[in-house]
C-alpha cells in the first residue's frame, strides 16, 4: 500500500484555501488599502501631484542626506577590563534555572552583554544540549516589561524604604506569632534553601511551600509509598531498548527534557555500524513532540489511562507469573497493550516505562511495572535522585486552605505565579490582598505580583549568582554575565537582609560551598566556576523492588467515569508553563506539531470535528464546572477521539506587551485533587459560539514541497536487510552512442561545470532519525543571526523570517483500510491518527544553485568553500531567487523590522537590541536573506586557526543549529577533511540523500533516511 505524506488537514482534504495558498506560494496582496486610505483616494482630487511632490522631496532629501558624513563617536573604556577585547567574544560557564527549566550553559558575551546561550558540554546532566526555551531566555533579560525599581504599594520605592517597611511588618507578625509562608517554585539551589532555612530560623513561624505550576508531586508520593523515598529518580533513556511513555512528553517538557532528549537521541542513531535502536511506544491524548517521535503511538483518553497502566501491569504480570491487579477493560487497546508488554519483557532490565500523569495510584502501578521489568538499578536510578519538580501539591492545597481561612499573615512569592496558575487563582489573588504582608520577587508586575504590597524584583538568571543541584551530587554554578540592568536585587539577598545578614549572596554561596559542597570532592571554587559544574562521582545505583499495595492503588482507579468531552491541558514546546510567555522568539516559534505561532487553541480530533461540524478556527464555548471560556478550534490529527486539549501559558493579562491577551488561560481547567493537581477534566461541554472564526498564523501550509518525495523513510527490519532501503535513487536514461541508453543517477547528468573547491568544503548532514522536531535550532538560529520577529499578522501572510524551519509531515496509509468485521479501529480513517516526520530545512547551499543563476545583480553567488552567499548590500529585491529556489528557504524583508513601531518586538527598543549579534548585519527593508551556514562562525574559526597556525579540527566550528541540537541530529563540517563526521556520514549507498535529488542542484546539505523501529516491514 502506498504511503501518503501530508502537511495538514487542509492538504489532505484539498481544502480550497490550501489550494490557493499552494498555488500562490508568495502572498501577493499589496496592502494598498492600508497605505492609501480609500476614502482619501476618492475625495482627494490631486493625489498624483502630491505623490510627485513627495517623490521629489524624498529624492532631494535622500541625496542631501547621503552627502553628509555623520560624526560618529568612538568611546573607549576608561579602564578596560582585562578580559575584554572589543570585538572578541568572552564565554562564561553559567547555569540557567527559572523554576521550570534547568540547563548548564555557556554564555557568549560581547563587550559585557550576554548575546547567546549554548550548552555546557562539561555537564553530565545536559551534556551540551539546550532547549528552545533556554536559548530564548537571553532575550527575556532584555525585556522592557521588567520592573526597574522595587515597588511598594504600587509605586516605585527605594530598597532602603522597602527593607525598612518589610522589616517592621515582619517584626510585627513575629511578635503576634503570625504565620509566614514562602511560596516558591522548585528550588534546586542548595544555598538558596539554606537562605530560606536561615529566614525560617529568624522567623520561626515560617513554612516553605514548594509549588510547581506543572507538578509531578504524585510521582514523589508514589515513590515514597513504593520505596520509602520521596524522590524523582534519574532516568537513563540511553540504556533503554524499549521505552514506553504514558502521557509523558519527556522530549520537550517532562521533568528534565534536555537530559532525556540527549539520551534518547543516542538510542535512535544508526551510524558507525550500529544496528539496533530503541523501540518507543507512546500512549497519550494530545499529540506531543514525544508521541510524534514514537515508533508506535496510541491515542487514549485521560479516563482510559488508568486502564492502560493497570492492563499493562497485568499483561506483564501474566507473562512473568506475578499476581494480577483489578483493572477496568482497556477495550480495543487490549491487543496493543499485550504487544507492548511483550516488547517490554523482551528487553527486561533495559526497558523503561515513564508516566506523566499526576496521580499517585497510577504512578504506583507504573512503579510496579518497572519493578516487574527489573528496571530499577539499570534504566531507573533511585539512588541518584533528580531534584527537579519538588512541588508538593498537598502543601499547596493546605496553603490555599489556610489562605482562605485567613490564617496566614505574611506571604512571599518567589518564581511562581499562583494567581495565574492555581486552579482558583482569582480567589487566591483576593486573599493575597488581605494579608498583613505580601511580597513578590517577580521580575514584572505579573498576575500575582500586582496583588502584593511589595514587589522586590529579582535579578534575571544571567545577572545572578546561583548554584544548582539538578541531580544529587551533580552541582552547577551560575555567575552573572552582566551587571544588573535595573535596580533589582537578588531574591536571596533580599531574604538574607531581612533575616539580618548583610552578606551578599556571592559571599554567602561561596562560604556555603566551601563548607558543604567543595569539601565532598576534589576541586575548588575557581575551577567549579570556570567549568560551571562540580560533579561528585555517582552513587552506585541499586536494584529496588516496590513494596506498595498495588491492589489498593488499582482499586482506587479501576472505576473511571467519563461523560462529555475530556479536556487535557498540556505544555507547548515554546511557551511551556508560561514562565517566558513575554518572549517574542518563543511566541513566534511555530509549535512543532500544529506549526501555529502566537496562539493557543483547542485541539480537537478530525473525527470529532467531522461529527460536530467544527471548522478550523471556529470559536467554541467550553464549559466545565463553573469554568467557561471561548477558544478557537484547531483540527489536530493524532488527538484522541472524544478529547480536546488546550495549552498552558497563554491568556496572560500582566506579562507584557508580547504575551498579554494572546490565547486563553488553560489553568482554570486544572484542579487540586485529593493528593495532587489534576491536569485533565472530563464532562466538558463544547458548543459552537457566535463569535467570528479565528484566524491562526500557521506556517503549516506555506513552503509546501508540492507533493514530491522529500522525506525518505524505512523500517528497521527493512534497513537491516538493505542499507539503502527507502533511499533507492531515481535513475535517468543517458544516451551513449546512437542507440544505447544506460540508467544513471541524476548527478551524472549535468549541464554545469563543477565549482572549484578551495581549502574547505563546508557541508551539513541531518539525521532524520534523531531529529525530534523540538525547535531548539530555530531559536538558536534566530539568536545567532539577528533574525527578525515579524508578529502574527505577517506570519499569516507567510512572511516569517526564520532562516530554518522544521517541516512536519503527517504520514498515513492513503486510504481507509478495508475493515475486518467487528474491528472498529480498522474502520477509522487512518489519517486521523497519523505518524509524524520532522525535517529541518534551511538553505541547502547548492553547488548548482538555481538562485544564483537568476539574480540580475549577482547578489547571491557561490563561494569556493561551498557556501551559497547572500550579499544584502547588493540585493535590489527582485525576489527572482526566492521564486527559483526549489526548497523555499529564502526570506524577503517586506519591511524594516528594526526601529519600526509597527513591529514592536525586541528590535524596536534599545534594551531589546542589546541581544543582537554584532557580527551579523541587521537586514534592511527590500532585501532577501537566508541561512548563511553561520558564515560568521566559519570565518571566526578559520581566523583563530590561522592565528595559531594550525588546522581546524573537526567539530571546532559549529553552526548555531548544530551546536544547539539536543539530540545531535545536525552535523556540520568540512568535506575536504576525510576525518570529518560530515564526510564519514555521507553514504548515498546507505541512508544519505539530497533533498530533491532529481533536480541535480547538488546541495551541500544532506539528510539521512528516517528509520522506524516497527515490526511491520513496509517500505515507503
Amino acid at each position, binding site marked *: 500500500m502506498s504511503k501518503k505524506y501530508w502537511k495538514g488537514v487542509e492538504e489532505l482534504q484539498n481544502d480550497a484555501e490550501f489550494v490557493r495558498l499552494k498555488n500562490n506560494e508568495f502572498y501577493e496582496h499589496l496592502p494598498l488599502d492600508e497605505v492609501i486610505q480609500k476614502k482619501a483616494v476618492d475625495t482627494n482630487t490631486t493625489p498624483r501631484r502630491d505623490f510627485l511632490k513627495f517623490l521629489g522631496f524624498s529624492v532631494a532629501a535622500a541625496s542631501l542626506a*547621503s*552627502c553628509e*558624513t555623520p*560624526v*560618529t*563617536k*568612538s*568611546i*573607549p*573604556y*576608561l*579602564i*578596560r577590563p582585562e578580559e575584554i*577585547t*572589543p*570585538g*572578541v567574544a568572552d564565554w562564561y560557564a553559567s547555569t540557567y534555572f527559572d523554576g521550570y527549566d534547568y540547563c548548564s550553559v555557556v554564555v557568549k558575551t560581547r563587550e559585557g552583554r550576554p548575546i547567546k546561550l549554548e550548552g555546557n558540554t562539561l555537564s553530565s546532566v545536559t551534556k551540551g544540549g539546550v532547549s528552545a526555551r533556554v536559548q530564548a531566555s537571553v532575550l527575556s533579560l532584555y525585556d522592557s516589561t521588567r520592573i526597574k525599581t522595587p515597588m511598594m504599594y504600587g509605586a516605585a520605592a527605594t530598597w532602603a524604604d522597602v527593607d525598612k517597611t518589610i522589616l517592621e511588618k515582619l517584626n510585627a507578625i513575629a511578635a503576634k506569632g503570625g504565620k509566614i509562608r514562602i511560596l516558591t517554585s522548585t528550588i534546586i539551589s542548595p544555598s538558596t534553601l539554606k537562605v530560606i532555612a536561615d529566614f525560617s530560623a529568624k522567623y520561626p513561624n515560617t513554612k516553605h511551600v514548594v509549588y510547581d505550576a506543572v507538578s509531578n508531586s504524585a510521582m514523589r508520593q508514589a515513590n515514597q509509598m513504593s520505596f520509602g523515598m520521596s524522590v524523582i529518580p534519574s532516568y537513563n533513556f540511553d540504556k533503554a531498548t524499549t521505552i514506553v511513555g504514558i502521557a509523558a512528553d519527556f522530549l520537550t517538557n517532562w521533568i528534565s527534557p534536555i537530559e532525556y532528549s540527549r539520551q534518547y537521541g543516542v538510542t535512535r542513531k544508526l551510524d558507525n555500524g550500529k544496528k539496533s535502536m530503541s523501540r518507543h511506544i507512546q500512549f497519550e491524548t494530545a499529540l506531543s513532540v514525544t508521541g510524534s517521535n514514537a515508533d508506535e503511538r496510541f491515542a487514549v483518553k485521560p479516563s482510559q489511562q488508568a486502564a492502560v497502566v493497570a492492563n499493562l501491569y497485568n499483561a506483564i504480570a501474566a507473562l512473568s507469573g506475578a499476581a494480577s491487579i483489578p483493572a477496568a477493560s482497556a477495550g480495543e487497546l487490549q491487543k496493543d497493550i499485550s504487544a507492548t508488554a511483550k516488547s517490554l519483557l523482551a528487553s527486561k532490565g533495559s526497558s523503561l516505562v515513564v508516566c506523566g500523569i499526576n496521580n499517585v495510584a497510577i504512578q504506583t502501578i507504573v512503579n510496579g511495572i518497572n519493578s516487574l521489568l527489573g528496571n530499577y538499578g539499570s534504566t531507573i536510578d533511585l539512588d541518584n535522585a533528580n531534584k527537579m519538580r519538588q512541588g508538593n501539591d498537598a502543601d499547596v492545597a493546605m496553603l490555599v486552605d489556610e489562605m482562605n481561612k485567613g490564617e496566614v499573615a505574611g506571604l512571599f512569592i518567589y518564581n511562581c505565579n499562583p494567581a495565574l496558575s492555581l486552579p482558583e487563582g482569582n480567589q487566591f489573588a483576593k486573599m493575597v490582598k488581605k494579608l498583613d504582608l505580601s511580597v513578590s520577587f517577580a521580575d514584572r508586575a505579573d498576575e500575582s505580583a500586582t496583588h502584593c504590597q511589595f514587589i522586590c524584583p529579582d535579578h534575571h538568571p544571567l545577572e545572578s549568582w546561583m548554584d544548582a543541584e539538578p541531580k544529587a551530587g551533580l552541582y552547577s554554578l551560575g555567575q552573572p554575565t552582566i551587571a544588573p540592568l535595573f535596580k533589582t536585587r537578588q531574591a536571596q539577598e533580599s531574604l538574607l537582609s531581612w533575616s539580618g545578614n548583610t552578606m551578599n549572596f556571592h559571599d554567602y554561596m561561596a562560604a556555603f560551598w566551601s563548607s558543604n559542597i567543595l569539601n565532598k570532592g576534589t576541586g575548588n571554587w575557581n575551577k567549579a566556576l570556570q567549568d560551571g559544574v562540580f560533579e561528585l562521582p555517582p552513587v552506585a545505583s541499586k536494584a529496588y523492588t516496590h513494596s506498595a499495595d498495588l491492589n489498593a492503588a488499582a482499586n482506587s482507579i479501576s472505576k473511571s467515569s467519563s461523560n462529555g468531552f475530556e479536556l487535557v491541558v498540556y505544555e507547548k514546546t515554546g511557551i511551556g508553563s508560561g514562565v517566558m510567555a513575554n518572549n517574542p522568539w518563543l511566541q513566534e516559534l511555530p509549535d512543532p506539531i500544529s506549526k501555529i505561532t502566537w496562539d493557543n487553541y483547542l485541539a480537537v480530533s478530525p473525527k470529532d470535528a467531522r461529527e460536530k461540524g467544527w471548522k478550523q478556527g471556529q470559536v467554541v464555548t467550553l464549559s466545565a464546572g463553573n469554568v467557561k471560556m471561548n477558544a478557537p478550534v484547531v483540527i489536530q490529527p493524532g488527538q484522541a477521539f472524544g478529547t480536546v486539549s488546550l495549552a498552558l501559558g497563554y491568556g496572560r493579562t500582566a506579562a507584557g506587551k508580547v504575551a498579554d491577551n494572546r490565547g486563553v488561560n488553560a489553568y482554570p481547567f486544572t484542579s487540586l485533587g485529593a493528593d495532587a493537581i489534576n491536569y485533565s477534566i472530563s464532562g466538558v461541554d463544547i458548543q459552537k459560539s457566535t463569535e467570528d472564526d479565528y484566524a491562526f498564523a500557521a506556517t503549516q501550509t506555506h513552503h509546501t514541497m508540492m507533493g514530491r518525495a522529500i522525506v525518505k523513510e524505512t523500517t528497521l527490519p527493512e534497513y537491516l536487510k538493505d542499507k539503502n532501503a527507502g533511499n533507492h535513487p531515481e535513475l535517468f536514461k543517458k544516451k551513449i552512442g546512437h542507440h544505447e541508453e544506460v540508467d544513471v543517477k541524476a548527478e551524472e547528468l549535468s549541464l554545469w561545470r563543477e565549482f572549484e573547491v*578551495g*581549502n574547505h568544503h563546508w557541508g551539513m548532514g541531518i539525521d532524520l532519525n534523531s531529529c525530534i522536531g523540538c525547535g531548539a535550532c530555530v531559536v538558536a538560529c534566530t539568536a545567532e543571526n539577528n533574525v527578525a520577529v515579524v508578529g502574527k499578522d505577517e506570519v499569516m501572510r507567510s512572511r516569517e523570517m526564520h532562516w530554518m524551519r522544521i517541516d512536519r509531515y503527517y504520514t498515513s496509509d492513503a486510504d481507509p483500510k478495508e475493515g475486518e468485521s467487528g474491528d472498529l479501529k480498522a474502520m477509522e480513517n487512518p489519517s486521523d491518527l497519523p505518524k509524524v516526520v520532522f525535517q529541518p530545512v534551511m538553505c541547502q547551499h547548492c553547488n548548482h544553485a538555481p538562485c544564483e543563476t537568476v539574480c540580475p545583480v549577482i547578489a547571491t*553567488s557561490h*563561494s*569556493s*568553500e561551498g*557556501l551559497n*552567499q*547572500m*550579499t*544584502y*548590500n*547588493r540585493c535590489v529585491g527582485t525576489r527572482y531567487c526566492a521564486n527559483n529556489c526549489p526548497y523555499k528557504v529564502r526570506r524577503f524583508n517586506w519591511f524594516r523590522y528594526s526601529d519600526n513601531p509597527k513591529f514592536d518586538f525586541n528590535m524596536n527598543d534599545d534594551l531589546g537590541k542589546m541581544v543582537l549579534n554584532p*557580527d*551579523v*548585519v*541587521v537586514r534592511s527593508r527590500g532585501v532577501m536573506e537566508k541561512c*548563511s551556514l553561520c*558564515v*560568521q562562525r566559519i*570565518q571566526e574559526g*578559520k*581566523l583563530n*586557526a*590561522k*592565528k*595559531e*597556525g*594550525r*588546522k*581546524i579540527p573537526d567539530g571546532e566550528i559549529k553552526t548555531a543549529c548544530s551546536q544547539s541540537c539536543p539530540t545531535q541530529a545536525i552535523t556540520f563540517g568540512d568535506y575536504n577533511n576525510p576525518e570529518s563526521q560530515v564526510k564519514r556520514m555521507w553514504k548515498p549507498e546507505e541512508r544519505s540523500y539530497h533533498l530533491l535529488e532529481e533536480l541535480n542542484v547538488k546541495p551541500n546539505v544532506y539528510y539521512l533516511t528516517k528509520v522506524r523501529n516497527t515490526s511491520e516491514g513496509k517500505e515507503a
Partner: protein
Amino acid sequence: MSKLSFKRYFKFCLPAVLLALFSFSSSAQDGEALFKSQCSACHAVKEKLIGPALMGMEKRHKEDWLIKWIKNSQAMVKAGDPVAVKLFNDNNKVAMTSFNLSDDEIRSIIAYVKAEAEKPEPVATTGGQAGTAPVEKEQPIALYLIIALLVLALLSAILAKVQNTLATTVRQKEGLPEPAEMSRWQSFVTWARSNKKLIAVLLIFFTLYGTVKAWYALQAIGISQGYTPAQPIAYSHKLHAGDLQIQCIYCHSGAERGKAATIPSASVCMNCHKYVRKGPETGTEEIAKIYKALDYDPSTGVYGPNQKPIEWVRVHNLPDLAYFNHAQHVSVGKIECQTCHGQVQETMTVASQFSPLTMSWCLECHKTTQVKMAGNGYYEQYHQKMLDKFGSDSLLTVDKIGGLECSRCHY
C-alpha cells in the same frame, strides 16, 4: 689692567665664585645627570610621582640614613626601621629599587635636589598661551568676495550710467536720433547671432566641464578620504609613534587579537602619563584632559569617582555591511599598519583617514597581496596544492584563495 678695572672685575667675580662654590658645585652637576638617569622615572623634586617629592629630603632624613635607604630600602623595611617602614607604607608599599651607587654619587644627587628645590618657581606664562599653537580662525573669504563683488557691481553700474549719459550728451550735441529701443534679451540675441562660433565653443566647454565635475562629485559621495575631524584631545601620532617610537600595537592592542584595533582606554595613556605630566607645547593642558576623564589628582595620585570617558571622534567609518577584522590582516596577513593608515608616525599630528576605504580599494589590494602561507600550519597541505597549481608563492595572491568572494566580508 687698571686697578679700578681689577676691582670691578673682582666685584663681579666674587659672587660668581661663591655661587659656583655653593650652588653649582661640581657635585650638583653630577647629581643632575644621575638624578635624570636613575631617579626621575619615579621621583620629581617638587611633585609626587610614584615616589614622594624629594624636596627637603635632606632635612627630613640624615644623610647616612638616606644613603642606606637608596642602596637597599627593602632591607631597612625588613629590619624594621620605623622611619623606613612608615615611608614604605605611606607610598602604597611600592618597593623602591636598590641602586648600586657610591656614597659620593648619592651625596651629589642630594645636593642637586637641594639646589633644584631652592630655585624659584618659573614665572607662569599667562594661561599657557605660549604653548598653544595659534588656532587658525577661518577667514571669512566668502564675505570679502561678496564685498568685492558688490563694489565691482557698483562700479560697473556707475560706469554704465556715465557711458549712457555721455552717449546721450554726444547724440544731443550731434543731433543724432535716439537708437531704437531694444530689450536686453533682444540685444543679447543680436549679439549671439553674430557670435555663433564663440557661443558654440562656450556651450561645449561648459557642458563638458559640468559633466566631468559632476562625475567626480558623485564618485566622491560617501568617501571620506582625508577626513580629519577635530578630536577632544589634541593627540599627536607623529609625536608618540614617530618621535617617541611607541609601537602602534602598544596602544591599539586589539589589532592583533580581534576585529577592532581599538582606541586605547585612558588607563593605557596613564602607563606613561602618570609620570609624563607636561609637554613642550600643548601637552600639559592635553594631558590634564586625561586626568580629568579619570578624575585623577596628580598631586596625590588618587583616582576619584567622577570619571567620564573620553569621546573620541571616529575617523575610519566602515559601513555596517562590511565586516573587517584587524587580526586577519595584522596577525595573519602581516600587513603593516602604514599600508592602510599611511605614514602616521611621520605626518599625522591629527589622525586622518589615509585610504579611501572603498570596496575597489580593498579588492585592489586583495588582487596584489601575496598570502603568507609558508610556515602557517593552517595552510599546510593547501599551500602545496596551490603551489602545484600556480607555480610560485608570489602568484598566490589573496584573490586566489577566494579573497574576492562576497561572504568574506559581507554577512
